[in-house]
């Protein structure tokens, strides 16, 4: 299951969906908004998605994980919109009988999501500038965003 949501991600809500009497292991990864990136003070950030393709690519990744690892279930949730420091941006939860498969699948999903799912992140810095991460393109606060 892969979901894009604008609601805050509550770990316990998704954990309860993973409950299973056969599951001996649960591995969870949460990506959270840090107050600092590349040496710059980050105040908040905004996630934007190309929703149709992001959903398709996200589901493909979760399906590939279910096939490639001995796991029972896999959920990946990505938050959209404006997020503050400490907010959870992405949540991945995996259940399996034995723990190694859960860890491997959890890492696989977050690695693949970061590479292939069309989601972008705009950082808002302490000095008023903004920048699209990975695009080498910080804009000054007063600058023309169309340049």
């Amino acid at each position, binding site marked *: 299951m892969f979901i894009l949501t604008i609601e805050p991600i509550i770990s316990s809500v998704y954990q309860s969906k993973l409950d299973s009497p056969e599951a001996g292991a649960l591995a969870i990864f949460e*990506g959270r908004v840090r107050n600092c990136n590349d040496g710059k003070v980050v105040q908040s950030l905004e*996630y*934007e*998605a*190309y929703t*149709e*393709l*992001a959903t*398709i*690519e996200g589901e493909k990744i979760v399906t590939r994980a279910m096939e490639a690892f001995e796991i029972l279930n896999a959920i990946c949730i*990505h938050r959209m919109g404006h997020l503050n420091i400490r907010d959870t*941006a*992405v949540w991945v939860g995996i259940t399996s009988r034995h723990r190694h498969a859960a860890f491997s699948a959890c890492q696989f999903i*977050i690695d693949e*999501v*970061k*590479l*292939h*799912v*069309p*989601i*972008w*992140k*705009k950082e808002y810095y302490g000095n008023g500038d903004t920048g*699209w*991460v*990975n*695009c080498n*393109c910080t*804009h000054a606060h007063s600058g023309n*965003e*169309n*340049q």
Partner: protein
Amino acid sequence: MINVNVEYFALLKDQRGCSEESVKTEAKTAQDFYQELQLRHKFSLSHNSLRVAINHEYKDWNTALSPNDTVVFISPVAGG
């Protein structure tokens, strides 16, 4: 001359100043089409830094465009 729908996200949306437009083009491939738009709108990223999706599917840059295709140029992603 065909009609193609373009959706913009993130940096490209900021640089274009809109999120969607319909464009008439004679470009044969996705790459030709991007280069046409890059010139017109002064997009900062070359096609080498981007990927292209046509009708919600990642495609090669040399894919031919068909009338009414929905084209999205995907700048480096940063989910997670």
